[in-house]
């Protein structure tokens, strides 16, 4: 693809704007989601199976009608429960890539794309469809039926078909889940490149956190239909809004502590440790029980016999319970002395070997004060309902 790709987009004519979604319903699929996505932005909806991700996409596309809420795109109201306004899918102009691609099995690749080009004069449909197929690198496969294409090629046809209608929003429902690892990498890379050319909001539904973190500008964490937090991946992984978010993001080090003050110094009591915390402790009343989280990057292992960086910062003793070697990285689970908690962190496998780390060994680590993230608002089940 050394030549300038023949780009069939007509960006200038597409009224593009922010997509904002606020939907609520008690059942049958509970929903309480608020999020928005700007043109050119890629927002990933992440959450476990059954968290309502696909239902939200379908609501945006007009294939599902929630009980309450508003869905707007670029100043146009697509859905408003209060006034009963609900545009049909045909009127909304969304590009939707289904999880299983939903290609029309009786039509070849070109005809599949042409179905989305009814708005063009008949003479232009064929060349435009071919241009779109070329854009997703399917030159020469225009006359193949879906059954004669590989999984990755089908996904590309589905993407070409979704983009061909010059959609105002692009919705991708687990678009990489049905292909092998190698193809997935390639398609993800192509999506990342393609994004620079399509200036519409892009929503990606996925349960793969790595994929979401790699591709999306922001992640929206969903659980049981509720949107819990929206932030860039880096922020989410360092500052989850609640223990629930931390758990959904597969973060391990979530504990509970109590705010204490001794000799004028605020500390976080955890077991018999009194931890220094860089941010957020000062304004909490003494005696508050608080959930806290530490990214595993902020656990520093003390070397034996040699002092290491930050050794005096929140030293904690423990016994190695588990060591999982995952290639170059070893994940260590530490039973922390004087608590029932386990602390997890990762170190380079060679460093673990050099330090003679093994199950049952007693080790010391430091918990970096700057990394400790307090989550004071979400403690008991009482506050679970708010989002």
């Amino acid at each position, binding site marked *: 693809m050394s030549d300038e790709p023949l780009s069939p987009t007509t960006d200038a004519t597409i009224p593009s704007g922010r997509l904002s979604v606020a939907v609520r319903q008690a059942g049958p699929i509970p929903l309480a989601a608020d999020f928005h996505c700007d043109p050119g932005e890629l927002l990933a909806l992440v959450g476990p199976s059954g968290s309502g991700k696909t239902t939200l996409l*379908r609501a945006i*596309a*007009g*294939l599902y009608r929630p009980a309450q809420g508003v869905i707007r795109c670029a100043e146009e109201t697509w859905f408003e429960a209060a006034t009963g306004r609900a545009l*049909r*899918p*045909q009127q909304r*102009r*969304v*590009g*939707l890539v*289904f999880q*299983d691609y*939903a*290609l*029309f*099995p*009786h039509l*070849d690749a070109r005809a599949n794309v042409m*179905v*989305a080009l*009814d*708005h063009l004069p008949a003479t232009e449909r064929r060349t435009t469809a071919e241009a779109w197929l070329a854009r997703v690198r399917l030159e020469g496969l225009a*006359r*193949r*039926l879906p*059954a*004669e294409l590989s999984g990755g090629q089908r996904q590309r046809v589905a993407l070409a*078909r*979704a983009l061909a*209608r010059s959609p105002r929003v692009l919705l991708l429902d687990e678009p990489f889940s049905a292909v092998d690892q190698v193809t997935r990498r390639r398609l993800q890379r192509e999506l990342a490149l393609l994004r620079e050319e399509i200036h519409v909001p892009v929503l990606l539904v996925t349960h793969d956190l790595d994929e979401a973190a790699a591709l999306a500008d922001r992640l929206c964490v969903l659980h049981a239909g509720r949107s819990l937090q929206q932030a860039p991946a880096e922020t989410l992984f360092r500052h989850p809004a609640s223990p629930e978010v931390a758990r959904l993001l597969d973060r391990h080090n979530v504990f509970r502590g109590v705010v204490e003050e001794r000799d004028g110094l605020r500390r976080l009591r955890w077991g018999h440790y009194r931890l220094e915390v860089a941010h957020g402790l000062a304004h909490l009343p003494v005696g508050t029980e608080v959930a806290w989280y530490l990214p595993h990057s902020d656990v520093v292992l003390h070397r034996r016999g040699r002092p290491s960086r930050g050794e005096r910062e929140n030293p904690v003793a423990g016994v190695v319970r588990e060591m999982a070697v995952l290639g170059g990285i070893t994940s260590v689970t530490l039973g922390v002395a004087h608590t029932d908690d386990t602390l997890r962190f990762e170190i380079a496998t060679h460093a673990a070997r050099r330090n003679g780390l093994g199950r049952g060994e007693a080790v010391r680590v430091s918990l970096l004060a700057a990394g400790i993230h307090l989550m004071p608002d979400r403690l008991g089940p009482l506050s679970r309902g708010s989002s």
Partner: protein
Amino acid sequence: MDWTALSVSLQLASLTCLLLLPPGLWLGRTLALSRFRGRPLCEALVALPLVMPPTVLGFYLMQSFGTDALLGGTWQSLTGGSLNFSFSGILLASLVANLPFAVQPVQRAFEAVPSNLREAAWCCGLTPWQTFRRIELPLVWPGVVSALALTFAHTLGEFGVILMVGGAIDGETRTLAIAIYDRVQAFDEQGAALMSAMLLLVSFATIGVVYGLGGRGRRPRVG
């Protein structure tokens, strides 16, 4: 060889197919896609002619075709003719008797179309009617073809219902199947054999042509 009976049979079968196609498509699609309260009852009613003895079905139809019955009376006041012992009568009976053959294959075919294909078509901008014509119909085509084949073949062979409603009036209600029975009753085994072979040939040709058409729709087209 009773050419008149063959002609009656072919007309009856063709008209039954033609008239049952639109309601068969509509009913089959509705039963496949809609979830309404009376659906099981509706499906049972459609399937009823399948399990009813043809003479019993014929008996009830004959009763309702009588000029003192609602259906027969209305028909007579509208057309001036009787439903019993007329071609219109056996055609109407044939429509009822063939309902399951016209509906069930279509219903199965619609059930086999993934619902997200319809949704994908809507997202591409197709109206529900365009979606039906351009996406659903080509996909359910083999089902429609087998519905037509079954209806045609079954009508050619129908005996009990036709005899009850229509009797055996030459050129009006005497179909080939009834003509064969008449010949056997008259000890004309050679005539019966000839007509049986004819019916076999026509049935086989119909099924062959129709499955040939259906098969072409199923094979992937490469080009």
